[in-house]
């Protein structure tokens, strides 16, 4: 595999997909039809990307890059995944900072706020449902209730998240992931 064609593949995937999760489908098509990975390897990469910390689109791209060309492949994937979103966002940030005092920005944000709140609720719901067991079990509800109480009391959120993770280790124990 030639490096620039690998880079182009990652650039394309990241330009065409609006978000991390959305890029999985495109990446799958590219990686499996180009025979960079077998289907089983790809599924395994998706599993690891969901479990390990950090942006999942980035991790998935690096897994594909590794399969295609070892360490140089990982850095090619990283470059391809980072360039499109950051260059665009830099331009948008620079423009928006200039207009920060304008009235229309206030209106735009006032209209966008409820929609952004709705988006966060929808993603939270999908996240909650998408735990590896695929069903909402009592343990997940218990952890959700306890952490809701902790956030209500305004305990520091990183501590609450760590606590929830540890509780998960206690409740779910030694169960291999699907």
């Amino acid at each position, binding site marked *: 595999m030639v490096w620039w064609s690998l880079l182009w593949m990652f650039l394309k995937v990241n330009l065409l997909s609006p978000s991390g999760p959305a890029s999985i489908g495109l990446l799958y098509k590219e990686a499996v039809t180009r025979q960079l990975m077998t289907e089983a390897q790809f599924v395994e990469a998706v599993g690891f990307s969901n479990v390990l910390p950090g942006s999942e689109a980035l991790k998935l791209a690096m897994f594909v890059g590794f399969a295609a060309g070892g360490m140089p492949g990982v850095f090619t994937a990283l470059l391809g995944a980072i360039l499109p*979103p950051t260059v665009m966002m830099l331009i*948008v940030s620079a423009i928006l900072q200039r207009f920060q005092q304008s009235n229309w920005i206030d209106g735009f944000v006032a209209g966008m*706020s409820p929609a952004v709140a709705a988006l966060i609720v929808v*993603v939270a719901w999908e996240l909650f449902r998408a735990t590896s067991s695929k069903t909402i079990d009592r343990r997940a509800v218990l952890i959700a209730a306890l952490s809701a109480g902790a956030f209500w009391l305004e305990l520091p959120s990183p501590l609450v*998240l760590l606590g929830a993770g540890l509780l998960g*280790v206690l409740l779910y124990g030694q169960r291999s992931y699907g």
Partner: protein
Amino acid sequence: MENLLPLFLIFLKVNLLSTSGPASVGLLYHEMVGSYVTESQFVQAVGFSSVLPGSDALQLAMYIGYAVGGIPGGLVALLASILPPTVIILGVTVILHRLRREAWISSFIEGLTPAIAMLMLFTAWKIFQKGGTDGWEAWAIGLVSMAGMLSKKVPERIVIIIAGVIGVLFLS
């Protein structure tokens, strides 16, 4: 400039404690809003990062970093977001076969997920309340947006752009 180190550490922490871009929104809100960026800047960051193509997490980092410290801020936030997954992947590809047996990692994430979902609900409520208006107009926009996103017929970014335009026309 003296903001760059705390900025780096915050993004490092957020990216170590969340498994995906959207999941980091709740944590990032708690760490940044009030002390480094305004409510309005945060909403713009989340809104535009879901509108533009590419990874949400990196765009969110870029925007907030830029708001705090210009281009150096954006690059610092970007670096801190990239570092944890990259180091972890480089490690994992080497010890992949051994890690597969470490079931406690998946149990940890299993426990983390409901808590992240809750944190996001709290964040959503705060963003909604402080969005400039929480009258019936905001409820209408919020509920219609949620219905649109849940129906899966309208792409999320279109919903957010429409909501913003409605805001410019009727709420400013």
